[in-house]
């Protein structure tokens, strides 16, 4: 309805309207309270990454429904508009423009793929549309440019790789050899570069006995497993995820590779429910943040339990980290609107005012609080632990967890991750906190 009136008005007063739009710019326009708050959400709805994208979409639907039942944001109900990012960045760029220009979204949540985020952030600059980077991990976004309308409401690649490395150095400091097996795409390569940059300075002299980057979506790892069995590295790093990781770990378990080497798996949490008892105990596991469903001391235990229970009740599965990341994006949006509306004395914020509210924002999650730095990057703590089994879960969960404060493992503002990691010294290890009790 709002859209139809706008079009008609634009047609009737074409000259004047076009002129005012041209010179005023969308960021400075006065905005009345809309009848609904439209949120464009880009996620993988198809292809192999839909193992993350579809659960995140489910979480969004669950939480939007909850928010709307509670009166929406500032009395305005939310409406998500989902877009599949699987067709690629060219398609996504067109969809981003369509969401802003045709659908009239007030903000956009983008994306799972780092490539998608790298394509969307320049558009957020150009169209002056607040864009919440809700899941992608590339460190390049805020290290290679400034994006006044883009904000990442969770951690990113550098802390997600550094924290498991620090855990390994604490847990198994005497390892001498290491092999890496990552997916052959940007994250697989970038995460290895980050890991190696830090490992070379924090523990010089580790011999890398195998560097393997199998095809993304590979359906068989038997040859790679054989090579790892023959090489007998002390440690095997894999930042793989999804079906690739499940296949790798199943084939490793069947051939007793878990008995020979210690695995470090920074992104394995979503695969653990699928692996069940196939996953071995005693290996280092991460979840791209601090949002383990069995977090021993969450900031708001009742809220965490409510979310996990509601998700399980509706979808008959445990929420995985993309679900938590989606929840964080929604929490940040609620907090930013509340801040912007308060700053405007109850008025509805325009695009520039909304973006201003996001900058420096601190918002609560079920497990902690996240602050968005001045560059737009969220500071999310990292929890890494050792895979173990208990009676509560039918799959591996972490024990002996260490919570790495975000500020400790995140690249300082204005520095490049690889340069910063290379500047660390072994003294840095003294900052590693003790395991969380519980």
């Amino acid at each position, binding site marked *: 309805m709002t859209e139809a009136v706008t079009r008609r008005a634009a047609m009737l007063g074409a000259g004047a309207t076009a002129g005012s739009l041209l010179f005023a710019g969308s960021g400075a326009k006065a905005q009345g309270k809309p009848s609904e708050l439209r949120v464009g959400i880009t996620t993988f709805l*198809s*292809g*192999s990454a*839909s*193992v993350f*994208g*579809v*659960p995140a979409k489910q979480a969004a639907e669950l939480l939007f429904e909850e928010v709307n039942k509670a009166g929406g944001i500032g009395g305005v109900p939310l409406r998500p508009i989902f877009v599949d990012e699987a067709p690629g960045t060219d398609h996504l760029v067109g969809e981003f423009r369509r969401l802003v220009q045709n659908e009239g979204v007030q903000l956009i949540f983008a994306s799972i793929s780092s490539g998608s985020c790298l394509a969307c952030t320049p558009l957020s600059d150009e169209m002056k549309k607040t864009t919440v980077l809700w899941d992608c991990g590339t460190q390049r976004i805020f290290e290679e440019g400034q994006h006044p309308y883009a904000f990442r409401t969770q951690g990113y690649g550098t802390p997600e790789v550094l924290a498991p490395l620090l855990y390994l150095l604490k847990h198994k400091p005497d390892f001498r050899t290491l092999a890496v097996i990552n997916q*052959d795409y940007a994250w697989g390569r970038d995460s290895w570069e980050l890991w190696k940059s830090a490992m070379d300075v924090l523990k010089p002299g580790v011999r890398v006995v*195998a*560097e*393997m*980057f*199998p*095809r993304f*979506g*590979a*359906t*068989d790892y*038997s*040859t*790679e497993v*054989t*090579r790892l*069995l*023959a090489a*007998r590295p002390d440690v095997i790093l894999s930042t793989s995820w*999804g*079906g*690739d990781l*499940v*296949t790798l770990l*199943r*084939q490793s378990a*069947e*051939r*007793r590779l878990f008995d020979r080497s210690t695995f470090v798996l920074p992104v394995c949490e979503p*695969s653990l429910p*699928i*692996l069940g008892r*196939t996953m071995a105990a005693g290996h280092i596991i991460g979840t791209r943040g601090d949002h383990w469903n069995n977090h021993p001391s969450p900031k708001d235990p009742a809220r965490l339990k409510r979310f996990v229970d509601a998700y399980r009740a509706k979808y008959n*599965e445990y929420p995985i980290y993309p679900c938590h990341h989606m929840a964080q994006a929604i929490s940040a949006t609620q907090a930013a609107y509340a801040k912007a509306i308060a700053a405007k004395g109850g008025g509805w914020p325009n695009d520039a005012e909304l973006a201003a509210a996001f900058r420096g924002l601190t918002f609560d999650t079920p497990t902690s609080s996240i602050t968005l730095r001045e560059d737009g990057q969220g500071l999310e703590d990292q929890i890494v632990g050792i895979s173990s089994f208990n009676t509560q879960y039918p799959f591996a969960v972490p024990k002996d967890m260490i919570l790495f404060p975000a500020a400790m493992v995140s690249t300082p503002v204005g520095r490049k991750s690889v340069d910063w990691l290379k500047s660390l010294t072994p003294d840095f290890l003294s900052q590693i906190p003790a395991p969380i009790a519980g």
Partner: protein
Amino acid sequence: MGTWFAENSLLLGLALLDGLANAALVFMVAVGLNLVFGVLRIVNVAHGSLFAIGAYTAASIGLFFAARGLPPWMGYVALVLAAVAIGAVLGPLIERLLLRRIYGHEDVLQLLVTFALFMILEDVQKLVWGVQPVSQDAPLRFLGTVDIPFGEDVIPFTAYQLFVLPGIALVTLLGLAWFLRRTLTGRVIVAVTTDKEAATAMGIDAARITLLTFSFGAGLAALGGALASPTLALVPGIGAQTIVLSFAVVATAGLGQIEGAALTALLIGLGRSIAVYFAPEFEVVVPYLIMVAVLLVRPQGLFGVIETRRV
């Protein structure tokens, strides 16, 4: 060179074992595609979907059996049931309802129709099985592992990988060769492949043969998926991964050539395994390097024959 082989002979031995299992899986999928093309002259993009659905069906039946407390060897029954079900149900449905309408049409139309079918079946998979990885490894665990000596060490291989996959691929190759050359139905299929018009003129029911062949090819694709299912995690997109590799095998082998598919699968399987050990960066491109090398020398493929263009 001799020194290099001496130093790496143990690793080459391991690569050979891995390569055989890899080749077996590649062959099982590609041979169905090759057979279908030979008779129907249609490049079936949806072949990858049949592989995926075969894998998902086998896993589902296996999980159903496991949930009912049936013995682990029933996992092998699940693999066969899945292949038969896809070949007997989905194969005839696709051939009768869709492909029959586009025989003799332009290649681009055939590609578009089978690609559309591929897209539809991809969504069907998501509707039925969801997007989270599906796993069922009872057949693998049932046979356990075999320790292969490696210097003073041992390397555990699954018996499934060492014996079952290459064994079934070999039986399929020999069985197909026997079927096509020694049985009446097989000879009729070869006749239709060689010259459909002449075969029809001699009273052969070409429509029945195409239906039979496509269903059989669909069953082979499903069997390939079923055999792969115990070792991999099934996720959306595995059909697309499979079809690309299968096309490379078919093009290298020569369209419609069974033995060519076997030899090509062996080359690709061994090539990829050796690459993983000695040049992992090239593992992904090995199938395509082999394809380019073969097609540069023999544009009709390893076993392909140059056809006279019919005016």
